[in-house]
């Protein structure tokens, strides 16, 4: 089970997982929006995305999570921002915090669709949860990389989470 022992990786499994990724993410989004009327919700959806990432990590190793298209920290921030902003926007219109609105929209082909503002809130939850799981995985992957780099002496640039590189204090301490 150890990710370090996961090399050499099973190519077939790897291909399967990476091929399924978009599908599973779509499923996650669906679970999120379905949640208002059936079991599910943003939290469950976000976790599904997280599990997909875990699978990628296990099959493709650290590279899979280190090369994410977006910085997971920004994703966390965006999710929280969306959730809180959804709550705060009604205040601008003199309503209460988190007061929900229901819009009915007539879409061609599909017919009348009810859009609830709290779905946006749930989307924020979804984003944040996915971001947190991703961030944790990336952090562990970085550490993994670092450990291996330490063993092999193979220098490499910091990953996406390298927000706090070694600073002067560290250096001073090391100089002592």
């Amino acid at each position: 089970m150890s990710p370090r022992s996961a090399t050499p990786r099973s190519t077939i499994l790897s291909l399967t997982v990476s091929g399924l990724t978009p599908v599973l993410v779509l499923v996650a989004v669906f679970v999120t929006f379905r949640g208002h009327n059936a079991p599910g919700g943003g939290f469950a959806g976000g976790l599904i995305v997280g599990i997909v990432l875990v699978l990628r990590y296990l099959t493709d190793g650290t590279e899979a999570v280190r090369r994410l298209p977006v910085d997971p920290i920004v994703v966390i921030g965006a999710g929280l921002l969306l959730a809180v902003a959804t709550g705060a926007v009604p205040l601008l219109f003199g309503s209460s915090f988190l007061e929900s609105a229901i819009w009915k929209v007539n879409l061609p082909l599909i017919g009348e669709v009810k859009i609830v503002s709290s779905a946006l809130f749930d989307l924020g939850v979804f984003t944040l949860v996915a971001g947190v799981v991703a961030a944790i995985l990336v952090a562990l992957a970085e550490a993994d990389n670092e450990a291996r780099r330490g063993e092999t002496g193979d220098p490499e640039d910091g990953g996406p989470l390298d927000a706090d590189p070694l600073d002067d204090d560290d250096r001073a301490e090391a100089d002592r």
Partner: protein
Amino acid sequence: MSIAQAGLIAVLFSVGTFLVLHRSLTRIILGIGLLGNAVNLLILTSGSVPDGVPILGTGSDPADFTDPVPQALVLTAIVIGLAIVAFLLSMAYRSWTIDGNDVVEDDLSDRRIAAEPDVDEDFGEET
């Protein structure tokens, strides 16, 4: 809450407590996980009795719904539990990188005072 559920709560609580009272941080975290499960079950079962699933339009009568509030509370508690366990695990990891194990040691200053109650290193100035 049925006797069976109460029994499960008792077991989860006991095992959780047993694990928490160890010195290995990993065991403590495992124990906290079990305690968290116990508490979640407690929230759910003490506040509601099993009945219709609280989803409208699935056939059961709203009057027969089981109380949805404890479910919502447990959902929140589960997420918080996840957050806590993840953070604690990273502490265990950090602890391991420091000294190669995850044993929670006693506080050094406290031990010093307990070991030498009569020595006050820098305040013994008396004329």
